[in-house]
């Protein structure tokens, strides 16, 4: 097992290198760089501009710049944010907890809704419950998060004034009040992101369950007189979860993508909003680092999915 994980981590190195090359080239091809602002600033003499560009190697050929970046990365130097005036790794570490908190809670919420609803709907296909669940799921994944997010803000913040619509990291409270406030301000973003995820996941859980429920070994289990609950949980669910795990892992990039939008709407100071603001201000080192962190997270979740896969399905041996 540990050998398998180690091997998978080693395989991840070339793919991460590949991703970094693509990211670097795309960013280099994009117009603008951190110093393009200086060009329009009349207070900075052209000689100073040229000296700065030379110092940071901005006019070097692209492969040299890439090797320079890679070398720095390997030494733990993630670069310097020209806009925030601080190291990129510091900046990311500052922003990451908010993102993980919101995305993690949203994923947990999505699973807590999708698995019970999907499983129950599959045991009673075409029943009233199933029809309602299907309709809601369809509505749920048809509505983009930027729409539901604004709708939620309109209803719960503006009209009802129940929840804050701006997320803040410096809550002026301590102890239990701080915890409650953290939960209160996360309710809307987590609900928007979680319900959106839950909608498509519910439908997937339902169809995975329906695929398994009519298989021969389920009839065998019924013939043992085990009772509906045992048959469903022990014999059907365990098998139906195998494709669901894959789907959840493959959806992680989309989840991060969705989080970027949600963070913008609710003003969550996470890495998603950091990415957007860095792109807008041409803060290339930050853009590069954040997209690279996203890539690492996606690779990591795929690895977790593969390990879970081997645990759920004994036919797959992790060697």
């Amino acid at each position, binding site marked *: 097992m540990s050998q398998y994980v180690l091997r998978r981590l080693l395989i991840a190195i070339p793919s991460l290198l590949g991703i970094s090359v693509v990211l670097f080239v795309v960013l280099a091809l994009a117009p603008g760089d951190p110093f393009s602002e200086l060009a329009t600033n009349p207070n900075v003499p052209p000689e100073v501009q040229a000296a700065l560009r030379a110092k940071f190697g901005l006019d070097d050929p692209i492969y040299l710049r890439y090797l320079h970046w890679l070398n720095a990365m390997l030494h733990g130097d993630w670069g310097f944010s020209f806009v925030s005036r601080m190291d990129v790794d510091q900046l990311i570490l500052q922003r990451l907890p908010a993102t993980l908190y919101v995305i993690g809670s949203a994923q947990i919420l999505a699973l807590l809704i999708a698995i019970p609803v999907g499983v129950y709907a599959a045991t009673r296909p075409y029943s009233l419950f199933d029809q309602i669940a299907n309709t809601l799921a369809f509505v749920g994944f048809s509505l983009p998060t930027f729409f539901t997010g604004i709708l939620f803000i309109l209803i719960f913040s503006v009209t009802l004034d129940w929840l804050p619509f701006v997320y803040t990291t410096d809550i002026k409270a301590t102890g239990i009040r701080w915890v409650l406030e953290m939960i209160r301000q996360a309710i809307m973003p987590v609900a928007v992101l979680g319900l959106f995820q839950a909608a498509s996941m519910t439908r997937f859980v339902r169809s995975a369950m329906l695929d398994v429920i009519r298989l021969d070994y389920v009839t065998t289990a019924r013939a043992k*007189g085990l*009772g509906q609950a045992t048959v469903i949980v022990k014999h059907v669910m365990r098998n139906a979860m195998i494709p669901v795990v894959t789907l959840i892992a493959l959806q992680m990039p989309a989840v991060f993508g969705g989080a970027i939008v949600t963070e913008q709407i609710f003003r969550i100071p996470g890495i998603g909003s950091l990415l957007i603001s860095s792109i807008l201000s041409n803060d290339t080192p930050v853009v590069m680092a954040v997209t690279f962190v996203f890539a690492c997270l996606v690779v990591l979740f795929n690895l977790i999915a593969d390990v879970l896969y081997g645990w759920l399905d004994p036919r797959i041996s992790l060697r």
Partner: protein
Amino acid sequence: MAPLLEIKGLKTHFSTDDGILQAVDGVDISINRGETLCVVGESGCGKTVTAMSILKLIAMPPGRIAAGQIIFEGRDLVPLTSNQLDEIRAKEIGFIFQEPMTSLNPVLTIGEQIAESLRRHEAVTRKQALERTIEMLKLVQIPNAEGRVHNYPHQFSGGMRQRVMIAMALACKPKLIIADEPTTALDVTIQAQILDLLQDMKERFGMAVMLITHAMGVVAETAQRVVVMYAGKVVEEAAVDELFGDPRHPYTQGLIRSIPRIDLDSEHKTRLEAIGGSVPILINPPVGCRFAPRCKFAMNVCTEKEPLLREVAPGHRMACHLGDTSLGGAA
């Protein structure tokens, strides 16, 4: 003595987009204690649906037991709920399915799959259940049972998996085993081994066996009594010697003639006789005898009036107008 299981006028229907499919349409079958009864017929004649109806293992909906009684030890099973039937499933009536490759759950060890049945029906601890499971695996001749009990189904061959299925069905020592084509999916050499094993187990535990098959060879080897089904109905029923010696129904005669023979010398060898056509689709079936379109003895009455099961010799019943004196000159 009352039979162990008596199926009376069973009708199992399925609703489909095209109408009601009458898969089983008025079947009477009875099994005595300790007896081996074979149910034969082509694919699609309602054998499996009849067997699955006994423990309500058919998908409901779309399936439905439309009429009839299934009396097991004096108790009608038809009105029971699935929860009530759970007390009878595996404990009183065990099931062996056709496909050993797909009938075992791939993500659970075979030991767990046998033991869960024991734990459900008997007051045993986990450890006792495991011991009993190993004992059952030894009984069905699985080598190295102590080690194999923790293996998963994919680590077994087809024949070994069917042995596991048998061990599973026998675990709670039921009074009746229903085996739905237990050898169809296996190699010929393995088939004989599995049939022998079933026979052994039956003698050891003294249970009744309802063996569903389409192979007349299997019938000749194992059965005491035979029920021949065609298109959702019983067409003939007799003791095994009687059936092979004096088949009365044209369909049974056709089935027996379609068995390849190697005991004839080459001059007497003829083309194997097959029954032309195929089983009718059982949505709005024709009136009269359902076999009439394929029967070479078909008469006018056959498409007008349904033949009923009647006794033609002691313990030998069949449903055909041929030789029916009550029809007067028609026959």
